């Protein structure tokens, strides 16, 4: 979107910001990479298209340590992550200039491939997507190519910004908790089989952890010897469970459900299910809570009420 | 299983919870009719004297009003003990239960209503 680029360039030129955090055009339309721009010349490769899915808020942790202001482009859902980081003192609002960029659902080249398209040579980001391939040309509908997370969109509002550019749209088409409910309805054996199968694919590349704005520990427990818990590869299937349960637990009440974990998993493990299960439980048991909606709010795991549900009651399916 | 355990099992009562306060006997409307008194039901079970209990007249005088059960401060429930003894006696008699059709002609106008109600209550299982 040219307007974002122009505005960012103007702010960079007039010295309001020292650098711009956005996306750099890749080899093709579909592979833009997160990037910092510091000069007008550099800004020539700036791009903001519908494939710019990456949540840039986590990069602001490092950027907050740099001198001068950083302009960051945040989509509505990214702004929740930024707010959450703000509440945890991980980013510096004073050093951030936020352009809330419009978003009408982001695309995933994986989903284009999932639709059966092979050998993609070029693709555009309009509806429907026009795809040129080694094996002929084809079309894929925008909705089908949209990231799974966009089907349960958090809405078009930015929760924190300095200025807004571009229109946003609530793209939700599905119930956010439908998948969770589907699994909850399974028998223990089915549940176990489902997760065993999914998690058996895990290669412990840590992409989910490293992309996660809530997993922003300087040193992860799974990398440190604090709990005698350092792990590098799954040797036993227990370790996959341990890693994913604890990771989800550590972000419980802090996860904004940005969906980056599932987006980046090379093995396509639906990691968001863990987070969403916690969110669903939190909503049911302790009242609706959206992490990052309010930077001043107290999270559900750092607060309580005297009459919270007992674990034994919850185990029986109750809520009080 | 001996008779004492049988009574305990049927009634679900632990006779050793009794503190011998006598409130059951104080509260019983059929007390005067009874040869063995409600508080004694408990001590008979404690001492294992089920034979005497099963032979007592009280068994057929108890109205099953359950006042003793309601008011027992220790949850010993003498009424249930007697009830259990009655069950044992009935079981010994074998299949002499009445069928539903046989009951109406046998109903005596003078029988207290409470007795009928208590019979239903008792045999509802």
């Amino acid at each position, binding site marked *: 979107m040219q307007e974002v680029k122009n505005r960012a360039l103007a702010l960079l030129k007039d010295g309001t910001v020292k650098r711009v955090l956005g996306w750099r055009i*890749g*080899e*093709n339309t579909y*592979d*833009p*990479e*997160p*990037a*910092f721009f510091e000069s007008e010349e550099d800004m020539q490769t700036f791009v903001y298209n519908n494939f710019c899915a*990456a949540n840039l808020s986590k990069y602001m942790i490092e950027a907050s340590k740099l001198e001068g202001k950083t302009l960051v482009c945040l989509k509505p859902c990214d702004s929740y992550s930024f707010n959450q980081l703000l509440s945890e003192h991980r980013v510096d609002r004073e050093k951030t200039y936020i352009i809330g960029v419009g978003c009408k659902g982001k695309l995933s080249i994986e989903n284009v491939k999932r639709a059966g398209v*092979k*050998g*993609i*040579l070029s693709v555009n980001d309009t509806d429907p997507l026009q795809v040129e*391939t*080694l*094996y002929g040309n084809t079309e894929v509908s925008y909705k089908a190519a949209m990231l799974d997370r966009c089907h349960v969109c958090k809405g078009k509002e930015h929760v924190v910004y300095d200025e807004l550019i571009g229109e946003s749209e609530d793209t939700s088409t599905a119930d956010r908790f439908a998948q969770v409910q589907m699994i909850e309805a399974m028998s223990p054996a089915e549940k176990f089989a489902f997760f065993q*199968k*999914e998690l*058996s*694919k895990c*290669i*412990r*590349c*840590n*992409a989910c*952890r*490293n*992309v996660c704005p809530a997993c922003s520990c300087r*040193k992860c427990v799974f*990398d440190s010897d604090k709990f*005698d818990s*350092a792990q*590098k*590869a*799954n*040797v036993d299937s227990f370790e996959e469970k341990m890693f994913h349960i604890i990771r989800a637990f550590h972000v419980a009440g802090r996860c904004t459900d940005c969906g*980056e974990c599932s*987006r*980046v998993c*090379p*093995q*396509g*493990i639906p990691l968001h299910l863990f987070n969403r299960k916690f969110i669903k439980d939190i909503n049911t048991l302790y009242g609706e809570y959206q992490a990052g909606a309010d930077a001043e709010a107290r999270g559900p795991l750092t607060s309580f009420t005297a009459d919270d549900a007992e674990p034994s009651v919850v185990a029986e399916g109750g809520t009080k | 299983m001996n008779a004492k355990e049988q009574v305990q099992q049927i009634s679900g009562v632990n006779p050793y919870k009794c503190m011998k306060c006598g409130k059951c006997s104080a509260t019983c409307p059929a007390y005067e009719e009874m040869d063995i008194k409600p508080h004694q039901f408990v001590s008979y079970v404690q001492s294992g004297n089920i034979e005497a209990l099963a032979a007592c007249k009280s068994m057929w005088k108890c109205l099953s009003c359950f006042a003793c059960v309601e008011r027992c401060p220790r949850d010993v429930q003498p009424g249930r003990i007697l009830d259990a003894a009655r069950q044992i006696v009935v079981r010994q008699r074998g299949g002499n239960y009445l069928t539903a059709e046989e009951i109406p002609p046998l109903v005596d106008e003078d029988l207290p209503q409470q007795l009928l109600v208590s019979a239903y209550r008792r045999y509802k299982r």
Partner: protein
Amino acid sequence: MKKIAISNLPKLYAAIAKAQSLILPVKTAGKTNFSLWTEACDVDLQTLKTVKSAKDAFFPQSETLYHCHRDGKNITITPEDLQSESFVVFGIKGCDVRGIAVLDKVFLAEPVDSFYAARRCHGTIVSLACGAPEESCFCKVFGIDCAEPEGDVVTWLTEDYLYWKPVTEKGEKLTALVADLLEDSDDAAVTAQKEAIGKIVEKLPYAALSLEGWNGEALNEKFNSPLWETLYKPCLACGTCTFVCPTCQCYDIKDYNTGNGVQRYRCWDSCMYSDFTMMAHGNNRTSQLQRFRQRFMHKLVYFPANNDGMYSCVGCGRCVDKCPSHLNIVKVIKAFGKEGK
């Protein structure tokens, strides 16, 4: 040249598996990876690239080296047995076969890695030609012919048949084992497929990638380039690229506390991780820039410099597909290419 009807493939798998264990692409929960064949598994030869490469078959992501068992004050040490039984890896693509050749350079050179060597000795490679190369493929750049891969047996998959050509002694042995199921065939279908593949390979977007200047002599100039500063920035420091790579061979050795002793095992490590080669005094690469640079310098400069020009990249394109930030080796090669001009 032999062939077998597609419909008979399950019989082929079963016949091989009866004699030795069979590893081949299996689809689990939507993703295809090399895995042990079982009657119930979902064999998937259609997916061009398994998520992880086939290197697991010879260099597993984690493997036990030995056990220490403590009983009172006594400690017994039991080394893990080496591979002693034959096995077959079926359906490896040309790039992954070359990947194994790269690993050989590391693990079979002195001192020989006995665990790896035992597996190589007992493993038979049945490779499979790529019917439909994809946009991220650039194996041609490294001189690999995906239409006629290397291996003990080479196979081609057409609509109706799997064509089967034993190449080595091991391959002949395997062919003899399943001779009953194979029928003789001419080369016509295979020749036609090779030609078609060749044409597609020419059209691949990265077909013309140039590796000019990527050699030991360019070491200092490349190492000190300011380009790395920009290139590394989006890197999340995850290990996706290294774990899907057919040639990455770094591993860590760790101890697992079993309660009554220790199980020493090795597992893949990633040079992208901040604790890679962590030592008592700290880390010899302290920034992500250094770690990022290391990976590409190793693949394109250090490794060829030490191995007669053999690159430690086979152009499989998995990192191109899988990087969460859309970084990859092609972008790096191209960035330096532009600079050169």
